[in-house]
């Protein structure tokens, strides 16, 4: 039996969220959700999918951790860094991988981050290469 775990239809379905960081926004009250929801706590089912890469200009690091005890798919990448990333507009937070960190000391609460497109994992010898959005310390100039 070929060695792979990620079903292709599932991956394909999730491409908008993995590549474009889509979140749910309630058209009625404006609440934003990540992970996405089918119904807002206000009761509305009028939900739109919004890409944070299009909608949000500023991402900030609230807190982070360096994970050494990783799961089997990430053995070759360890250690992994994960941060609680705050998006200012629309206001939503997410726990996301932080990448391109040469020195962990460079990571401080409050620093600005930018999203980047990266390989997440390779699914065995026969499976697909999985991609997703990670964050790195901002290098670009930010237009306010």
């Amino acid at each position, binding site marked *: 039996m070929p060695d792979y775990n990620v079903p292709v239809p599932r991956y394909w379905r999730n491409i908008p969220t993995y590549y474009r960081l889509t979140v749910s926004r309630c058209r009625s009250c404006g609440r934003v959700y990540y992970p996405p929801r089918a119904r807002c706590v206000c009761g509305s089912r009028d939900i739109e999918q919004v890409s944070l890469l299009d909608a949000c200009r500023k991402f900030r690091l609230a807190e982070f951790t360096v994970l050494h005890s*990783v799961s089997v798919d990430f053995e070759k990448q360890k250690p992994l860094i994960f941060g609680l990333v705050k998006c200012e507009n629309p206001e939503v937070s997410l*726990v996301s991988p932080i990448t391109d960190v040469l020195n962990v000391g460079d990571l401080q609460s409050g620093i600005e981050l930018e999203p980047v497109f990266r390989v997440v994992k390779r699914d065995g010898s026969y499976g697909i290469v999985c991609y997703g959005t990670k964050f790195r310390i901002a290098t670009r100039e930010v237009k306010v």
Partner: protein
Amino acid sequence: MHVNKVYVKSLHAVTPGRHYNKSLRDLAAEAFLKAWEAAGCPNIDMIILASAAVDIVEEQLLSSSYVCEYLSLENVPSLRIEVGDASGTAALAYAYNLVRYGVCRNVAILGVEKITDFISVKVNKVLSYLCDSTYESYYGITPAVHAALMTKFYMKKFNYTYEDIAWWSVKMHERGASNPYASLRRKLKIEDIMNSEIVADPIRLFDTAVPVDGAVCIILSSEKSDLGVELAHVEQHAYNVSINMRPDPARLFTVNAAREVVQKFSPTLFEISDKFSIFGILILEELGLAEPGTAPKLIREGTFDPGSKVVVNASGGLKCIGYPMGASGLYLSAMLILELAKAEPFSNVGDHSIGAVCDVGGTDRLSNVLIFRRES
């Protein structure tokens, strides 16, 4: 409406650990048969299997039925309850209602986990399924990441150092060193905790509960038993919200919701889920046993040590018992029942008549609080 009192008929806990020579069915059989024989082999109306990962590790659906076949309980109905690492206490809560409302007379709750068939990185993958598979585990996020972030937020909020948090583990290992039901049975110094390998900064190995195999069976009944312990109340709360969407990541909202019931029953004996040290600390504060920001100080000072007015985790908690995932809460319950019954090795715990178990599923997605009472 007539309701029954719900008594603990009997129990048996297999010492958790790396049981390479035993299958999941062997472990389940050992726990069930010893508990059943201790109860005088009563007619069992239902078996409820509590396991978080039996389908993943054993590649087995209908696991409760196959366990029953192994026990030659050919006509006993069974089901499995899975709500992650709170499966055990959820199963107890469900069984409580079956007995209380007269649906069943005797129900066996069988918590079992067989995790050490997998190597540690594979175990980490199974644990990561407690997080959101699509949005978190996909990127490699595990519960340790959540706990690390919670710990850092807590430390910052109350100006604690990592050493202050690490004392939780020292105190648990003081207690667990003499507990024959513990898989990690030795005292540790603060240096041992602080020099253990880093899992997810700042969390180190001894701040976690080590995944182990385990099986424990508790038989609930509408008939009194020699143990003399009653399951008096169950309380279940949920907050189905991911850690990034919470107003404060360093809070356990579901545990806080159970505060009133703790005030009502005033238990003086607690067994709480300390799968990570921060969970133990936060549970003390959310239940109102310690003011916000004071738990690390109080635990270090010995406020909740055996022999005190309020005793927490006389068993050594999950730090010493280990972390048999879905069976964890049943182990905590079994320890509390033995403590209330003043059974060995808990004769030094003190004289307590009401105790509570507080079990948390995932990162505060749900919690179960169970109140046990010793019959006077």
